[in-house]
């Protein structure tokens, strides 16, 4: 059996359920809506739908979405990083299984139901509002539901586990010996974290950020339930084009633009991180001179000799 045969199911799956639908969406996006009861037609191809989607009215929603996406991801990172570090490093190993289970528990409940739970909590007549007024922290009823803040609370709550889990795995993999070595060589707690643990956990950070940012940008439920008119996101815009307006062409153009916005944002983010860390990395670099190379050659020779000898 040829080696690639093992990958055939994965490729087939990808082709049928990813490449083909996305290709159709891209194709629809160049078409137009033919009439009240038609959804799309492609006999005349144009970029008009893209211009429509980029008109100021709709573009504001793209900016809104980007804001929620970036802020939500940043908040998840800020909250998730210490939690994951604590779980992987500080918490007693015997408890780790339990802690991971606790992070996972919300996933056992339906996404929509969890989000509606927040609607009840944040309502002006909800218990949180009554409590805050009772304690005297706020004057009037809570005015958060159906705002961007409510959406932000919702997405952080919904996506936080997706940030914590990869970070936990990454911190766990760094392992204690390297941290001990760093301390032995005179680095303090923060220095060890910044120069040893965090750089080694980088794949986890990247995975967490992508796992949160990408689905968050396309989120539709959280914004619909908690956002009202103010927390409008592109996901809703696309859904309403397909479901109510029946304008598949415009909906597709918006969906394609969303994909592009996500790709460009991720690329820009990567670039910014690369530039910011550039000075640190150049300082970190250890240049091995001839002596070092010779020494390491010698070391290799030694080891070989030992292996032969043993």
């Amino acid at each position, binding site marked *: 059996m040829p080696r690639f045969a093992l990958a055939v199911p994965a490729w087939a799956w990808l082709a049928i359920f990813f490449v083909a639908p996305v290709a159709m969406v891209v194709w629809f996006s160049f078409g137009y809506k033919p009439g009240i009861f038609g959804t799309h037609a492609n006999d005349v191809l144009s970029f008009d739908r893209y211009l429509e989607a980029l008109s100021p009215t709709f573009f504001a929603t793209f900016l809104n979405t980007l804001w929620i996406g970036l802020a939500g991801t940043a908040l998840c990172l800020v909250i998730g990083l210490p939690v994951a570090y604590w779980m992987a490093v500080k918490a007693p190993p015997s408890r780790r299984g339990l802690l991971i289970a606790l992070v996972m528990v919300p996933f056992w409940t339906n996404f929509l139901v969890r989000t509606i739970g927040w609607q009840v909590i944040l309502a002006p007549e909800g218990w949180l509002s009554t409590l805050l007024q009772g304690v005297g922290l706020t004057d009037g009823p809570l005015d958060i539901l159906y705002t961007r803040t409510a959406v932000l609370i919702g997405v952080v709550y919904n996506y936080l586990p997706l940030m914590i889990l990869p970070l936990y795995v990454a911190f766990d993999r760094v392992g204690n010996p390297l941290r001990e070595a760093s301390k032995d060589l005179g680095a303090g707690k923060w220095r060890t974290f910044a120069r040893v643990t965090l750089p080694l956990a980088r794949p986890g950070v990247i995975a967490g950020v992508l796992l949160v940012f990408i689905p968050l940008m396309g989120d539709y439920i959280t914004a619909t339930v908690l956002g009202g008119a103010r927390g409008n996101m592109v996901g809703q815009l696309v859904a309403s084009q397909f479901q109510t307006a029946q*304008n598949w062409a415009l909906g597709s153009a918006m969906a394609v633009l969303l994909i592009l916005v996500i790709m460009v944002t991720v690329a820009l983010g990567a670039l910014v991180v690369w530039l910011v860390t550039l000075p640190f990395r150049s300082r970190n670099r250890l240049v091995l001179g001839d002596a070092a190379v010779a020494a390491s050659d010698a070391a290799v020779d030694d080891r070989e000799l030992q292996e032969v000898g043993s």
Partner: protein
Amino acid sequence: MTNTRKPVRILASESAAKVIRSELSRRRFLSFAAAAGATGLLAACTPGGGTSGAPQPTGGALEDQLSIYTWGDYDNPDVLAAFTDELGPTITLDSFGSNEELISKLVAAKGTSGYDIVVPTGVFIPQMIENGLLQELNLDLIPNLEFMDPAFLGRAWDPDNAYSICKAWGTTGFVYDKNVITRELATWNDFLDAAQNEASGQTSVLDDPGDLTGMYFWANGIDWNTTDEADLAAAEDFLVNTLAPNIAAFDSYPGGAAIPQGTHALMQVWNGDARIGILESPDPDRWQWVFPGPETEIWMDNWALATGAPNPEAAHAFINYVLTPENQLLQLDYIGYHTGATGIEEAAVAAELPMLDLVFFTPEQIETMREGEVNDAQQARVDIWNKTKAAAGA
């Protein structure tokens, strides 16, 4: 995908055969055949075959399932449960927030939506029939039609009730929080004014293109079915640039959560939903329902059968079941809309149901109600609604 292909055999007249052969790609056939069944395909291909493809129900045994696609919270759960207990079919409910949403699902499915009963608003019915989204009812299986008030049958959009039977009718008004808005509101102009002042940022409007644009036209004494481009442009300008920044939510059912939870101070709402919300509110005196002048909407939602309905027998049995006077009263008690049954107002008064002023209207009030139209401006209204939604989030 690995099945060996079996040739499809179609018996057709010689003249039709050529057309069928050229028209019928395999893919199209599959989607169509699933929709209509083999007999329906033949019927549809003959000239004048009509759109009613699925086998006509003849009063045979009921299927054990029934799927209803309707407006949110629009049936008394007791009636649904009693139907299942007495006659067997398990009911699956799904809900939509606007006729456009219903239509888009039926259009996309091309007769394979799996829904049996759908509940479109009357004015959308002619075009839905024309586009093959609805199939004819077999009125022989609905003898309880006799309990309906003839005033609510035979409407212009379906004169013989061949496709639809009145389910409920009502109007569009608004509800406001008397703690926030202390003056008295009476018209759509008051609504739009309060939305920009006291209730700015605490206003919700119906998530429905017709009602959103309608509000502006009713307030300004313009026929809300206008196709005049200047009128539509003026509506767009007002809704997108002036009203949108004050809108907090597009909510078709504030009665479900927003009124009981006190989320908004001013809400455009359908009368029955307003009644549900106020009845469920812990502080009902806080809310004021307004039947707004100078004009407002009248709509009638109808029981209808989706093309390709998989359970037509159960669907007919259900419609017939709901039309009995006892069930009509139960429905009214729950949803708060006039169901069109004969003598239902007297029955409701006799049963001492609460807040009937939100259910029954005086002849003078009915005179100011205007029915919508699905016309050339439909697309423009949907566009305005889309832009208003986007602008409200900006």
